[in-house]
């Protein structure tokens, strides 16, 4: 057996071992959550309680709707705000700027994406909460403030991915479209966006995944209120912030612990849906 063949076999073994360890860890985590959540889901009325509006775990109320609503609303606000801004940054970065400023912008976005979330939370506490307080004459801690902080957090990631997506369209297509008399805007909307739509959608899904999982920055500005309401200017909570808030009070095996495991499974379920949608879109393209 030659040295090259042996080295290749060794490396294959290492890779397989690493893969098994990785998958084992991930599946173990999911299995632990499923095992913890199962008694709660199997008891009579468990599923019904999941869509309840009242969360008071010490009194036996485990309605998860306020947290599901908070998660959806905060993620939605962040995408609505960050999406257009990220697209603007990406268009400027990929189509308009020259090479040097383009590089500067890319590096800036990478740095922004790497800033720890607690600093975004601090920024939210200093700027966003007072701003919302001024508008609403309420506490300022709100779903809106959390959504805006999250928007700032996902914006750099989204902009970098959008930029990469737009760069996939060959420059000759762009030049050809302009030569045929189309304006730059028409070229963007009718040629570049449709041509890169798969990568653009994948960028949005990545941003959704990041927004769904964010905890610390959101916790700092959302207010932690467990009441169910539709007021964007009022405080609330998300699945992740409520897990953070209540995890330390429930020992394993208690109903509260089981309910928190269900919340974690809901988040994982949402991630699975995002990945499935992404891959279905990929196949369709």
């Amino acid at each position, binding site marked *: 057996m030659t040295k090259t063949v042996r080295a290749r076999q060794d490396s294959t073994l290492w890779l397989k071992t690493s893969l098994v360890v990785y998958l084992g860890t991930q599946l173990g985590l999911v299995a632990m959550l499923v095992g913890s959540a199962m008694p709660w889901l199997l008891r009579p009325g468990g599923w019904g309680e999941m869509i309840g509006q009242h969360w008071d775990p010490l009194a036996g109320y485990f309605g998860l709707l306020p947290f599901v609503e908070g998660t959806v609303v905060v993620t939605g606000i962040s995408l609505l705000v960050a999406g257009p801004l990220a697209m603007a940054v990406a268009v400027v970065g990929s189509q308009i700027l020259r090479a040097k400023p383009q590089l500067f912008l890319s590096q800036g976005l990478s740095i922004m994406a790497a800033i720890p979330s607690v600093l975004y939370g601090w920024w939210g506490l200093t700027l966003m909460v007072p701003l919302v307080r001024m508008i609403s004459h309420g506490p300022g801690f709100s779903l809106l403030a959390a959504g805006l902080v999250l928007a700032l957090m996902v914006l750099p990631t989204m902009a970098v991915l959008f930029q990469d997506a737009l760069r996939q369209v060959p420059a000759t297509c762009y030049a050809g479209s302009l030569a045929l008399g189309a304006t730059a805007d028409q070229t963007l909307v009718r040629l570049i966006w449709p041509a890169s739509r798969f990568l653009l959608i994948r960028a949005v899904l990545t941003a959704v995944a990041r927004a769904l999982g964010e905890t610390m920055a959101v916790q700092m500005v959302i207010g932690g209120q467990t009441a169910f309401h539709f007021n964007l200017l009022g405080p609330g909570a998300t699945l992740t912030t409520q897990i953070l808030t209540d995890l*330390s009070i429930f020992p394993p095996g208690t109903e509260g612990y089981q309910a928190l495991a269900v919340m974690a499974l809901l988040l994982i379920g949402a991630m699975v849906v995002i990945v499935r949608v992404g891959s279905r879109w990929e196949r369709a393209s």
Partner: protein
Amino acid sequence: MWWIKFLALWGAIATASIPWGPARPARQHLTIMGATSVLPYIKAEVARWQAHHPQYSVAVSGGGSIAGLMELGQGHVSIAVSDLPPKPQWVDYVQKYPLGSLPILFVANRQAGVQSIDRRQLSAVFSGTITKWDQVGGARRPIIVVTRPLASGARAVVESQLLRGRSFTRQALVQLSNGAVVRTVLDTPGAIGFVEGGRALSGLLLLTVGKAQPATSTRASWPYMAHPALYVRPNAPSVVKRLANYLATRPQRRQYGIVP
């Protein structure tokens, strides 16, 4: 393959870092966890204790009273710090080292316009029955209640001593630490909350409750007191008990608002 070489090098470095030579006395690790209210005192005194006991390393972390007791029950920490007496479902058979008393002070934002409130009114404010400051003689402004999470010992003390069976309003803001409560009440017009004593409260209204004057130096005139204590397992190593005893008897507690 370059990365196999890298792994081999990494393994060699890791192996070299293991003390194979003559046995050095191993450092023993101790962990303290629980109520955040007395954490500054615990951290300061543990640092002093460690200076005289270099063979021990002590990790101190918060998490709340109930979390500390639960971790003690599961054998994950050496000492739990709690404002609450332990319940059997958290931990069984513990030895208690009382630290003293810590006043729980009720604070309001300056725009509330109220300096004094009676016990029933305060209870109604926290439970959400009274929702505007003008209902208790203050400004025409909605009341925003700020509380702590369920794992907080201070919250449990307020629920038992003030609310007496009622719950905090579900409209309350929940902040994870004493410091976050102070900042939120300070910045939010109409906010009211509670903090455990021993920290600077400038800029806030310190509420008088009925005839009781908020006091940080004596327990006689103020009925709302937490009683933080250290808890260890009866079969804990003697060094753990010595450390608990050291922390429970230091006169420096007063500097941190703890009334011996």
